[in-house]
């Protein structure tokens, strides 16, 4: 089975989407004989090389962050380009993993709906997806063995989706959050903003600047 892991984050490195795809890749490699192509859609245009790789794969898995309740604009632009491409009636199964900075994975529901609607327009098959809450912390969370650690619910969801991918089956969208208390996640994020603005030479009160 030829699988494309598509990183739809605008960030070239250190993205939560990249972390999720790395985890998913480790599941896919151990699960069966799979040939994996890693494709980056960091810009508004799908490169010739990426198109060529996509033409040689049967399953596409998009991972992207939630931006303003939808998918990032640059990825939307790529989807329009992919819809306009002649795929010569290829049967492609599509899955999606959308992570959000908010705690609740359900907030990614409409972004997954966009991917599903895009499948209808392109004629591809929607295989379902995962909405991941607490995406802002994924970079800092270690992977632990035997289903432990704060990333465990996310890893479990990725494992379940891996089984579906291998069977080329469809799953209902699955919404998960990190196993970390919401109030602590909120506190950690807000401390992070304060550290960052100070590191940039600013003051914490400037986080709330109201510009005219």
């Amino acid at each position, binding site marked *: 089975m030829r699988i494309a892991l598509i990183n739809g984050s605008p960030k070239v490195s250190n993205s939560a989407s990249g972390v999720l795809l790395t985890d998913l890749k480790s599941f896919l490699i151990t699960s069966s004989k799979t040939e994996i192509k890693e494709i980056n859609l960091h810009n508004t245009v799908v490169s010739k090389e990426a198109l060529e790789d996509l033409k040689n794969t049967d399953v596409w898995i998009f991972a992207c962050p939630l931006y303003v309740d939808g998918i990032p*604009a640059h990825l939307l632009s790529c989807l329009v380009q992919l819809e306009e491409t002649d795929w010569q009636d290829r049967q492609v199964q599509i899955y999606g993993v959308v992570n959000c900075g908010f705690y609740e994975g359900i907030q990614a529901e409409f972004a997954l709906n966009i991917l599903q609607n895009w499948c209808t327009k392109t004629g591809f098959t929607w295989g379902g997806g995962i909405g991941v809450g607490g995406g802002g912390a994924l970079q800092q969370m270690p992977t632990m063995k035997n289903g432990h650690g704060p990333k465990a619910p996310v890893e479990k969801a990725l494992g379940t989706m891996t089984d579906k991918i291998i069977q080329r089956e469809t799953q209902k969208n699955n919404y998960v959050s990190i196993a970390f208390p919401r109030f602590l996640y909120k506190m950690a994020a*807000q401390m992070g903003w304060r550290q960052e603005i100070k590191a940039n030479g600013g003051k914490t009160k400037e986080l709330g600047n109201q510009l005219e």
Partner: protein
Amino acid sequence: MKLIITDIEHFNIPVEGDYKVIRPQGNIHHCIGCFGCWVKTPGKCVIHDGYEGTGIDMGKCTELILISQCCYGSVSPFVKTVQDRAISYIHPDFVLRKGEMHHKRRYKNIITISAYFYGTHITEREKETARNIIDANADNYDGLVKNVCFYNTIKELENMIL
């Protein structure tokens, strides 16, 4: 002030009262997820291409009007790029609203959102997604939804007054 964000280059729909139109003019760069608009130049995007001040404009408006092609239930890439680049309208800190995590307000104005989608063959699922996203936008801006409408062509939109 009414703030209109549209992908129609030659925008000529009549508008009552004070308004500003943000439409395709030159190249727009997509959001790169750097959060500079929160932690480097709070309130303003760090990419200087003429679209860096939309967050400030949103802080001055009473009505946000989105006029866009419907792309799979989303606004079009141009309108979405403007929205993505304008997250500085809200504060990076979190609050709980309707039991969910959202961002805190930066400004005091309450935005009422109207969305006018156009396009041939907009499916019922796309319409449902679009309505849900505009509702979610209103929750995140801590604002309200005025209306969400669908049209087949841009021409049909020219018969109304915003």
